[in-house]
């Protein structure tokens, strides 16, 4: 019986405590709303000061901008907002103004001591300044315990051309060890603008298919034809995903040297590789693969049949004629040929 009474008393205490807590939060909300109105006003003022400085006529002298120290935390938010709308020369000017008011120093501190959100924002802000101090802070942030901060730092580093050794970046971002974020592709594509040689070396030496796939994608988007040979070298790898990625990369590069890899891919045991090979054949225009591609119209995998039909249409000439001919057949191949022809005609 005491146990039952205890349940009653505990429940009463919990209900009372939750109501009291909620009432405190409601009062606190009233206080916060008032504070938010004040912060909003200060934020508008800070934005106004920055916009006025930006609008001053361009001259050798930097416009003098004064921001109270207590408003520096507000700057993080204001910077984010302005960066979304300010581009080109104006952006460079904004960066100079922000540096003059100590935003860079503040961001370095936030990157070291802030919350996860603050550290992430600070990394983005520091990417603007392209200064040695900011670059050092960003390199340190690559070892941040939180993955979002590490990736934000890597994005800032790669987008601004700060020197970083690729193998170190692979280790810091734990590529191949932790689940690969799609954002890594963006980072590697940016790095490809300045580090093609390093990416080529990474593709040759990396042990993990995931790392090689990132390198293949970045190299393909660099449109540097030195990448063709390196990508061809991995197009016969044991990993299905890497073989498909290699063909995807080769179709982006559109180089005729991809022909042997495409021909091999058209008969690959893995259907995603066959689908990519058909796509690649159509994109690069390997008319000589027409018959092999047409054979894929009978493939068991729908995506392979669909890509093959698309490729035949893209190849034009005899291949497209073959597609039209097959479209007249009452078969699975004929059906996909008819639909792709109708679809493309409508488009």
């Amino acid at each position, binding site marked *: 019986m005491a146990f039952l009474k205890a349940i009653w008393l505990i*429940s009463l205490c919990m209900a009372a405590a939750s109501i009291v807590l909620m009432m405190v939060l409601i009062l606190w909300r009233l206080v916060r709303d008032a504070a938010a109105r004040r912060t909003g006003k200060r934020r508008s003022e800070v934005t106004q000061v920055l916009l006025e400085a930006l609008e001053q006529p361009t001259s050798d002298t930097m416009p003098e901008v004064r921001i109270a120290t207590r408003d520096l935390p507000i700057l993080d938010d204001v910077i984010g907002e302005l960066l*979304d709308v300010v581009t080109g020369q104006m952006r460079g000017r904004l960066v100079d103004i922000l540096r003059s008011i100590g935003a860079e120093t503040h961001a370095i501190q936030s990157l070291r001591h802030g919350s996860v959100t603050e550290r992430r924002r600070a990394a983005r802000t520091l990417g603007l300044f392209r200064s040695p101090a900011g670059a050092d802070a960003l390199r340190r942030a690559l070892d941040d315990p939180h993955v979002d901060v590490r990736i934000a730092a890597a994005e800032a580093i790669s987008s601004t051309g700060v020197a970083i050794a690729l193998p170190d970046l692979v280790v810091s971002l734990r590529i191949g060890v932790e689940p690969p974020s799609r954002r890594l592709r963006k980072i590697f594509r940016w790095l490809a603008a300045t580090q093609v040689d390093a990416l080529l070396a990474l593709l040759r030496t990396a042990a993990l298919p995931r790392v090689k796939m990132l390198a293949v994608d970045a190299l393909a988007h660099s449109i540097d034809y030195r990448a063709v040979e390196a990508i061809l070298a991995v197009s016969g790898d044991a990993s299905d995903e890497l073989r498909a990625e290699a063909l995807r990369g080769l179709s982006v590069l559109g180089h005729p040297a991809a022909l042997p890899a495409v021909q091999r891919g058209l008969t690959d045991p893995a259907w995603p590789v066959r689908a990519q090979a058909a796509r690649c054949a159509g994109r690069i225009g390997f008319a000589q693969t027409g018959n092999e591609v047409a054979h894929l119209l009978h493939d068991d995998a729908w995506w392979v049949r669909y890509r093959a039909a698309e490729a035949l249409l893209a190849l034009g000439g005899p291949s497209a004629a073959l597609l039209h001919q097959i479209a007249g057949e009452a078969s699975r191949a004929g059906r996909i040929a008819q639909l792709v022809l109708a679809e493309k005609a409508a488009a």
Partner: protein
Amino acid sequence: MSEVGNLLIHWIGQASPWLSAIIITVGLMQNTVYLTQLVIAFAELRRHRPDKRSTRLWAGVSEVAPPISLLVPAFNEEATIVENIHSMLALQYPSFEVVVINDGSRDQTLEVVIAAFDLKPIDRSYERSAEHKAIRGLYGSPRYPNLVVVDKENGGKSDALNAGINLSRSPYFCAIDADSLLEPDALLRAVRPFVDDPERMIAVGGTIRIVNGSTVRAGKVVEVGLPRHILPLFQTVEYLRAYLMARLALSRLGILILISGAFGIFRRSAAVAVGGYSHGTVGEDLELVLKMHRHHREHGIPYRISYLPEPVCWTEAPQSTRVLARQRIRWQRGALETFFKHKTMLFNPRYGRLGMVGLPLMMIEDVMGPPIEILGYLLIPLLVVTGILGWEYFLALMALTIVFGIAISVLSLVLEEMELRRFPHARDLAVLMLAAVIENFGYRQLNNFWRVVGYWRYLRGAQGWGRMVRTGFRVAP
């Protein structure tokens, strides 16, 4: 009194200690589960506080966001479908298509869509990977290249969604109700787990919020408000509890088994691998997620299924008792159908945490909870009045249902206010707190009664969805 009556009283007298012990134990288990979920949800929200600004999201993920097909099954939606399609086409997302599936509507749904978007018949090649009724026609327009309308024979929501899965071309699809409104940045937010963990993530659910009382302009909620009617207000508190507390905690534990049919994103290949949505169940959303769990566990494929509190989909809550009753009866039937279909997973170590924790939690909350609570309301007061049980039993029953119910509802609101603050005014919080208290006196019991009716219908093998009467959004002038 007859001999049978005496026997009955004797039997109840004999069994009452056991029955009361079962009622109290199940109540205790339920409340322990809820309190644990609250603690886990609180910790999770502290770890991942969502970014309020969508421009930052756009900068962060737009370049790498995968294409998504929005699947919108529509049945007799002529009044709202055009505005809702416009709102979907205006979503902030770099690459998406809207696939509207007219599931054999008996009104002018198809005709109004064709007229509004100047659609013409088209051909589209597709893989028949999930079963569905025959497609009568496909429609598209060069003016809206990312809109496809499918006209098919009536087969129900799951059938329509399967047709959408087959016709979609994107690696991911988002199932959304035709009468729901997505926040403009909802897709961008919901896709984030797929960007961060593209290999393992197979499904992500967002939050469903009640639109009653909010102001809608051009298919967008422009001012968040509270429902003016009591039933939708109670449902606002209920949804807070269900999403912010339960789903967040279950997601953190890796045992989330329900992604609402009104808004969820799925990896297409993972849904196709389990044959898409199941037919013959009214809980097709629950069933799909459980099938996906099961498939991945049985084949040893690493996977993740997550819930995010921030991507928001607005939906209209029923404000009549009759419609709400039908909805709750249907939900209960769906839960039971799915639970018993997958009962072999229960306490089965082969299914890891899902079998050892997820399914047992479902058993406590959905299978045992409602009938035992109703039994408690009927039996314990009777036994106390007749002197068979002491009044402490009655107090314990009230504690485990009403008083703990108040604590848990209010604490969910505390969680919302501490971490998300999505209700714009302090006054709204006060009203919600009051609703969180009052709902435990009557509404909670009514809900449990409907669930017991759902139980009965399940046992009798009833079919069908019942009709949802929509009152329409409050539109801004």
